[in-house]
């Protein structure tokens, strides 16, 4: 378990060195997208470049350009869009609950931010801008400046290891008496 402090946008080498179980803190630009933004990006394309980006599954609570609470949402709902998103050059998807690991192989990582910790996350984020604002507060594509955003756990690495899958498999084994 190694701790990394990385700067976004991320390179292929940044992602390559991360192993499932490592702890990551990110600084630099961070983009949010959830259900509606993903659907819209599939239909009409992405309004901005996501090359090397960290994409955060988050519907933040924001007032007057100030981030009040911004923890992760359940990534599983966006699983159908993983291939599209990684094709745009995204190097890290951040969320909670995990995503199927195969699309990440050789390309990107999945980082788990502690769920429900919206107030703590808000202290590490500032608003830089907003895209697709017609989708409303929770569903817009927000552009944040992250400062030591974390702790995040590498839950799916680019080498095919998936922590959630390992834990779930072990939990689904018959109970021992």
């Amino acid at each position: 378990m190694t701790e990394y402090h990385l700067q976004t946008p991320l390179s292929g080498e940044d992602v390559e060195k991360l192993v499932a179980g490592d702890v990551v803190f990110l600084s630099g630009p961070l983009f949010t997208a959830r259900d509606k933004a993903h659907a819209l990006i599939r239909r009409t394309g992405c309004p901005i470049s996501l090359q090397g980006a960290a994409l955060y599954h988050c519907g933040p609570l924001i007032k007057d350009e100030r981030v009040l609470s911004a923890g992760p949402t359940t990534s599983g709902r966006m699983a159908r869009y993983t291939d599209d998103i990684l094709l745009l050059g995204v190097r890290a998807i951040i969320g909670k609950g995990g995503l199927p690991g195969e699309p990440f192989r050789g390309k990107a990582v999945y980082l788990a931010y502690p769920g429900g910790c919206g107030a703590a996350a808000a202290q590490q984020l500032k608003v830089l801008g907003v895209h697709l604002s017609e989708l409303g507060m929770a569903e817009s594509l927000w552009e944040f400046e992250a400062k030591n955003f974390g702790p995040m756990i590498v839950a799916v690495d680019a080498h095919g290891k998936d922590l959630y899958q390992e834990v779930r498999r072990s939990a689904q084994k018959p109970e021992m008496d």
Partner: protein
Amino acid sequence: MREKVVEATVRALQRAETSLPDWVLQRIDEAAARESHPLARHHLQFMLENMRIAGKKCLPLCQDTGLPIFHVQMGRDLSLDFSLSEAIAEGVRIATREIPLRPNAVHPQTRKNSGDNTGPGMPDIILDYVDGRGLSLTAFPKGAGSENMSLVGMLNPADDPFDFIMKSVAERAANACPPLFLGIGLGGSFDLAARLAKRALLNMPGSSVEELLLLERINSLGIGPMGLGGDTTALGIKIEKAFCHTASLPVAINFQCWANRSATEVIQ
């Protein structure tokens, strides 16, 4: 009186969104002290750190400020000359602006957001009548992460309901922000089982031998905080039961995340 209900609604939501009941914090604290997995322990400690920040800065602890669900206990001798649900809805609209809350309530098909967390069926009010002339109002904002993992199983009476619960928790826990609180509705009909499960969350935590044994079994799964492994998968379980048809065995599981938010205001 109407004004008092509106104000109590805002106060209850404010407290529920920015703090956790003491007994919930205590359970997380105890779990952090017991937890043998370092990563799991760090997660539990970060949750407590999140609560300190939310409390100090008066911020919603989670950006998913939930759907507005309320449990109202109303004295039988109390008569109101206004619509209780309309007064609570007004409180929700004010709280959404002032705390503020994230507008979450949308039409189920058009997905259009009302912008104020109200709409047909919202807020959802669970009403009980009690002795006397008082009125107590509990705000129980419910986030989607855990609610989305909830389910009703119409089991065969020959099935073991606890096997169904174990299997469902093993599959679903990671998405529901564990360590979990689990409200179980056992028996009744299709919809009564679900209502019992929601009531079980309101009556948390359980302390019967059956509930404690199930809690122990679930913690032996090793799912851990956020589903990344550990000894702490659930922090509390409550089972509510009703008689069911001789041919049925309905079982409902209402998942609740570690942030088991609620706050009660009493109006005299």
